């Protein structure tokens, strides 16, 4: 008889090995749809690798793509640690982006040394405000944040579209629904000449490091972990559960807002309603793949960005659909979830007991 039993304590190699193995398996499984699409598998994988590591430019593109995923991944990872299910990073990203163009596209004309921090801070504040609403509804009235944050995404996106047709519309855009561009001195500095990768990446890396340190070493992180792991015991021990939840909600929203700031003020220069191809949602996958560890988020954002950029490049080279990238990302998430189950349980074979009819 085969039975499934819980493991008493998952080992260290499990927590590290399972995500890595899941990613590898997901990449390997991608061979099936590739073969079905009629592609030569070795060529396809070769093109994928070349698309990420083939040149300095390719690599910098991957880093550019990973930057917003690090922000949204951190947003999800921190909130999920406290069992606060912020599914609204997509909307908070747009709020941050809107704040960035609202202040950065000529509303104030001050030197970059003041304008850049102002944009960053206001963008984060806008994202935080976007998450404060569901957090307040949850802590005050017990409204399920999964529902409120998810639905707010659609409301915010429609609000963005309205603003792009109205107050934020660029009069020089020949009728296209897009905002005026952020002033040159308001743009986040580029990291390499003639490459698109920008200093938003540095900000994301620094924030991931700070988050990692604070989670493990600060009283704030202690409270957050306690609330997430056992809210009843945390409350009994005198930890302000709602206060902790509200605090992490603000941080999570702020990080998602920074994803929007970094896309607008680091990359695109202006806001359109298709700024994000779902970075907010992909951030959830990034966080899960990372086991909700901030440093892990950096690694998993790099992996997922590689898959996206590599698959794009492969699809251009051999003519299969770039939707394959979404498939690999989804499969890695599934593999991680299954892997998580395998890590917590083990499957054993036992001989059948005597006396069974």
């Amino acid at each position, binding site marked *: 008889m085969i039975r499934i039993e819980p493991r008493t304590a998952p080992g260290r190699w499990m927590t590290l090995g399972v995500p890595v193995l899941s990613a590898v398996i997901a990449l390997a499984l991608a061979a099936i749809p590739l073969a079905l699409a009629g592609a030569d598998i070795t060529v396809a994988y070769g093109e994928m690798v070349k698309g990420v590591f083939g040149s300095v430019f390719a690599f910098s593109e991957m880093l550019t793509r990973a930057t917003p995923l690090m922000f949204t991944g951190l947003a999800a990872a921190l909130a999920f640690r406290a069992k606060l299910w912020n599914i609204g990073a997509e909307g908070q990203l747009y709020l941050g982006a809107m704040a960035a163009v609202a202040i950065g596209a000529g509303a104030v004309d001050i030197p970059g040394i003041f304008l850049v921090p102002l944009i960053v801070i206001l963008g984060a504040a806008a994202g935080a405000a976007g998450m404060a609403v569901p957090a307040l509804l949850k802590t005050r009235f017990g409204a399920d944040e999964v529902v409120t944050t998810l639905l707010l995404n659609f409301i915010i996106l429609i609000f963005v579209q309205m603003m792009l047709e109205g107050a934020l519309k660029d009069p020089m855009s020949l009728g296209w629904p897009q905002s005026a561009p952020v002033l040159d001195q308001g743009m986040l500095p580029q990291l390499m000449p003639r490459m698109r990768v920008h200093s938003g990446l540095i900000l994301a890396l620094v924030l991931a490091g700070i988050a990692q340190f604070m989670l493990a070493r600060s009283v704030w992180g202690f409270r957050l972990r306690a609330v997430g792991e056992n809210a009843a015991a945390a409350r009994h021990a*005198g930890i302000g559960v709602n206060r902790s939840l509200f605090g992490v909600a603000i941080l999570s929203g702020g990080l998602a807002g920074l994803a929007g700031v970094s896309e607008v003020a680091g990359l695109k220069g202006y806001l359109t309603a298709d700024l994000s191809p779902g970075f907010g949602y992909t951030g959830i996958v990034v966080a899960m793949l990372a086991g909700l560890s901030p440093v892990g988020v950096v690694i998993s954002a790099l992996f997922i960005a590689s898959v996206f950029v590599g698959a794009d490049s492969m699809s251009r080279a051999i003519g299969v659909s770039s939707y394959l990238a979404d498939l690999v990302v989804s499969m890695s998430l599934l593999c991680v979830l299954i892997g998580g189950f395998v890590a917590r349980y083990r499957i054993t074979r036992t001989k059948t007991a005597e*006396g069974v009819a």
Partner: protein
Amino acid sequence: MTESKVLSLNALSKRFGSVVANDAVSLDLHRGEVLALLGENGAGKTTLMNMLFGHYMPDGGSIDVASPKGEMQPLTLGHPQAALSAGIGMVHQHFTLAENLSALNNITLGSEPLFALRRDRAGARAKVQGVMDRTGLVAPLDTPVGKLSVGERQRVEILKALYRDARILVLDEPTAVLTPQEADTLFENIGAMTGDGLAVIFISHKLREVLAFSHRIAVLRHGTKVGEIATSDADERVIARMMVGEDTPVTQRDAMTPGAPVLTLSGISVRNPSARDSLTDVNLTVQAHEILGIAGVSGNGQSALASVISGLRRPDSGSIQVDGDEILHPDPKTMIKAGVGRIPEDRHHDGIVGAMSVAENMIIERLDDPEVQTNGLLNRSAMAANADRLSQAYDVRGPGINARARLLSGGNIQKLILARVFEQGARLILANQPIRGLDMGAAAEVSRRLLEARAGGAGVLLISEDLDEILGLADRIMVIHDGQLTEVTSRNREDIGLKMAGEHT
């Protein structure tokens, strides 16, 4: 009477992961016999019975049951239906009754064919009546079960088993929810039923009732049967030694003069949708050097009382004073700061964060303490030193101070909580069911620490459903019934039991 065997468990084994719950346990049961199955929590009693009833599949061993004609036949394992039709009935600690149906319907529920054209109600009623007449188990058949008392519900459960012609009845801690008087009645009924030929296994860890009502005692420890003894040859010390493998330390309680009040509740009321969790005009005072015991059957407002004193629930009216100061806005943090140490009833759920380390759990109530943190950063070497010291002093045994707290056993989790509470020099200690579910060694340690705190000048409020625990530790006793407190001056079990049942004497 006891020559004819009706059940034999042959070398039953069951393990969960690396934990061996039962290791080759063999047990025989005879017609008309009451067998008490004793053991500490986690000794494997419930696992054994769950295998008998088909809820668990044994990893090894077999079960033989006598047919109505008396021949021993192997039982199909892992199928509750097979156990039922072999005449095995089980009454769980937590009842499985439909509250909106009448007692009679509950009794016949499940033993009628699903698609019968008409139900033989008169026949069913006559059969139940017959069982009631023979055994003396009486329950109002037409009242919805929701309106019955706990004792009556239990009788309905037993009647349900007997209605299905059970010849072997398993009772899992039947007296845990009963007042002493109700328990005595239950055992009288059991006496009548066994005279009828029924064989009974009852699981308990109350030595007194085991000695008074069983014919034979089997003791389990760590999943193995460590002994079997005829009740006539046993006394409390013998059984206790079998259960724990050593003599139980006797708690020594020195007389003390109570000091100033450390906790005063005046006119505290808590209204909750569930009447089981409400309080009405509760007044009590706990003084320094004193243990006040709150006795009562579970679900009479103990949780509400503990929540108020823990700061988890603000009372709807009334005032709380700790150490002479009125607490205006009670919440857990305020209560901790005011000097209230809390030992929660559900230690896994409220006492520890299982996924965090032992060291972290030891400081979770004092995160503001400069010894533990500097400018918002945890002082990890101080945390480790603190955890090492407390683990030593309170004998917390486990995989280490950096291991997750949930890896500790129940007794060690309780010692962790004790360490946390006593190290803060609490003025008042709220101990809610502090001993329940602990093995005797850990239980003795808890008692010792509570008495030590009392000697050190703290007041202790001990809430317990175990009257022996209250009588052993408390200087004064109050009884909680239906959300109200009454002081009892007598230390007579019967007097207290009557108050627990809500009788006004």
